[in-house]
């Protein structure tokens, strides 16, 4: 079968799969940002209980595989009365996993804000909460954007695993098409190219643009 004909026949399914991948990606990114911010800040808390809880969460999610976490959330959690449908389990697992990595980026960026900034904020008598919100976080945000650019690509790649719990994303469609056609080069090759274009020509340029405009906004550029 010529490649053109292949695309004509299966293009629709690739497209449908890609759409699901995009939705999974966006939702997983939102979850991971929320997780990263809350656990990153909790990790820096002076309250020992809060800090330990965050540390345990981060170490567990970074110390085991995303695939294990995904299967655990989808197959084991229902035994404890928490049943998520496969679509939700998918982006929640990816988001919680990547959020643990993001939490470390948040912490690292906050620590990278010069000590003088904390002191200056204290010298104008700000409360700890004001200091964090008004002075430290805006600067930490700009510091952590470049590493988040890489993490966001990892999130996108991570969503491919949701195919293994039968979410009909791009990965899933590619596998189905492969099973029925045995045209593996065409099938998996097409899927690879779609992921590549998505990462390299959509996500990365967007993140770069975001970085630059944020840097300009705080007068760093």
């Amino acid at each position, binding site marked *: 079968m010529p490649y053109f004909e292949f695309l004509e026949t299966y293009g629709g399914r690739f497209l449908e799969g890609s759409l699901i991948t995009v939705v999974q990606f966006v939702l997983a990114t939102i979850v991971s940002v929320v997780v990263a911010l809350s656990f990153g800040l909790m990790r820096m808390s002076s309250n020992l209980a809060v800090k330990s809880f965050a540390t345990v969460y981060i*170490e567990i999610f970074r110390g*085991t*595989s995303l*695939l294990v976490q995904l299967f655990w959330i989808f197959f084991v959690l229902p*035994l404890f009365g928490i049943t998520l449908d496969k679509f939700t389990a998918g982006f929640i697992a990816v988001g919680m996993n990547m959020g643990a990595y993001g939490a470390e980026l948040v912490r690292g960026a906050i620590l990278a804000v010069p000590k003088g900034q904390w002191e200056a904020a204290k010298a104008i008598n700000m409360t700890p909460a004001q200091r964090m919100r008004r002075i430290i976080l805006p600067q930490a945000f700009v510091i952590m954007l470049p590493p988040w650019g890489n993490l966001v*690509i990892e999130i996108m790649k991570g969503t491919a695993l949701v195919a293994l719990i039968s979410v009909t994303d791009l990965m899933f469609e590619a596998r189905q098409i492969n099973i029925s056609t045995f045209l*593996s080069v065409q099938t998996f090759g097409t899927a690879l190219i779609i*992921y590549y274009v998505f990462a390299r020509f959509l996500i990365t340029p967007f993140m770069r643009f975001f970085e630059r405009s944020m840097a300009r906004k705080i007068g760093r550029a």
Partner: protein
Amino acid sequence: MEWRWDWTWEILPRFIDATGKTLMAAGGGYAIAVVLGLVLVLAQRTPYRIVTMCVREVVEFIRSTPLLLQVFFVFYVGPQFGINLSPWTSGLIAIGVHYAAYLSEVYRGGIESVPKGQWEAAKAINMPVTQTYRRIIIPQALPPAISGMGNYLVGIFKDTPMLSVIGVAELMHTANAVGALNYRYLEPYTMVGVIFLAISLPTAFLITQFEKWVRRKMGMK
């Protein structure tokens, strides 16, 4: 749902066996990645711009597409051309090449961290390029690369579960098989998680210690 210890002990030997296979997959894949990564980084430092650009794009391609998809690609593409690769061979190739791309970036960072003055000093004592790499650049590029290399050693270990999809009998594959046979997933998936934690946390710790030791040994701060 209650945890069944008797069953846990019963299935434990299979998991110990599978842990060995997981470590083999991680070790084999890492060996490929360490060597191939070096090839990829040196290929980007040749005077031929076209070679540099092509290799650079290949590295980007590998880094921005999901490993899971690459595993399928390697496994299924062979038969289409009459080459049959075993799950182990394709699995090691896929994971090795994937991480080679990451490691080449780590090496690159290490090499770029060596000040330009070192190249100039080597030139000033009339050292040839290969010798400069071997005697001057690589020894200095290594310590900053250790933490990145260590992270990816743990990373490759945590990504081995993806080889389960093509039938490599590592931990995840075993957990799936045991779980399906007995309709019980709590113990198998939790055990996999615990085993991963038990290996990756101490490894990460040892890597940090090793990095500190190397830096001290080399008199670098």
